[in-house]
């Protein structure tokens, strides 16, 4: 509990960007395009009954296999547009835009 409190204070003091979330439902990433500031932690949550992955087309980030309810976090530092997909179900594509 204490650790959480300290962490939150530190983040607040540093004026860090709000965390961003992407959900995986029905074989799609939502939102399909998420725009964040560099340094923002993005969390993907698999809410399907089937495992998925989060893999950048250029392989700059790559999750392990996410079973139901599992999460993947990534904190981009370099601005740019990163197309990513589920390497198990490659029809699932989306974009992470870092400003």
């Amino acid at each position, binding site marked *: 509990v204490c650790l959480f409190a300290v962490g939150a204070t530190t983040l607040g003091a540093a004026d860090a960007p709000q965390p961003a979330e992407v959900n995986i439902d*029905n074989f799609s990433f939502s939102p399909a395009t998420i725009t964040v500031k560099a340094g923002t932690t993005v969390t993907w949550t698999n809410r399907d009954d089937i495992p998925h992955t989060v893999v950048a*087309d250029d392989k700059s980030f790559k999750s392990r*296999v996410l079973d139901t309810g599992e999460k993947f976090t990534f904190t981009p530092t370099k601005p740019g547009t990163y197309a990513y997909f589920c390497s*198990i179900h*490659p*029809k699932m594509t989306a974009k992470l835009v870092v400003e």
Partner: protein
Amino acid sequence: MAQERDVILFDHNHDGIDRRGFLKCMAWAGTGALCIMSGGVLKSYSLGSPSAQKAAKGELTFVQISDSHMGFNKPANPDVAATLKAAIDKINALPHAPEFMLHTGDISHLSKAEEFDNVDQILKSARATDVHFVPGEHDVLEENGATYRERYAKNAKGDGWYSFDKNGVHFIGLVNVMNLKPGGLGTLGNEQLEWLEDNVKPLSASTPIIVFAHIPLWSVYPEWGWGTDDSARALSYLKRFGSVSVLNGHIHQIMQKVEGNVTFHTACSTAFPQPKPGTAPSPGPMKVPAEQLRGLLGITDVTFAQGKHALAVTDSTLE
């Protein structure tokens, strides 16, 4: 109790109904139609008809099972081990003993060693202990499929493709679940396609060919990823053969299509059903009442009659 529907699905030999149509073999509750391919022409009979009985006395009989998804434990099937066992019981009760089995992938749900162990253990109780596998995408989730290859494809080429011959029939196991590209479908890849071209080169055009792979090698429903990007190139190498059958899994339901001399067939899962193409927001496990589950799972029993080039495909549910 098995439900049977007496449906003549297609009979090209006589009236050429819907030759290139998108044919569903028994769709959901159905089971017990028999599809017979003779000289590259597919005919079908209802089970129990005299023609069907005759065809069942072929010289080579094998069974296809698919999509056992060991490790899956959510609705509508919290016990996929029990339904796989039920499938094996069904196989062991067939009137003619199969010489071997094909497993067309998604053996496991998460590529875990204990999931593979569990399937291997259950398969040991089958009358036909000789099983030829191809991987599904769920079998190669970690380390580029190293665990799968170690267990099931030690003597195979590349990511696990191979061929073998039985009673004059040439079987080809293909891998289309590796190195998938963003936005794409299943992929065979150049290396495997070149191997396939070389593999069939020495065969005479009268050699019956049976290809098996996880993702359908025909375009079932690309919107859900139910197809293979470079399957047309693979099929081009098989064009000159009089009799080609393609057996797939992945979509967890029975579908059939005839294109020229190629018959495509997808098998049921032994674990859970998936929706019919386009009838749900996405593919994935379809939740059905417990009493309906086993009517939507099943096995595929195939008989090849030597000399007649006849392939009889019978799907049965686990009920």
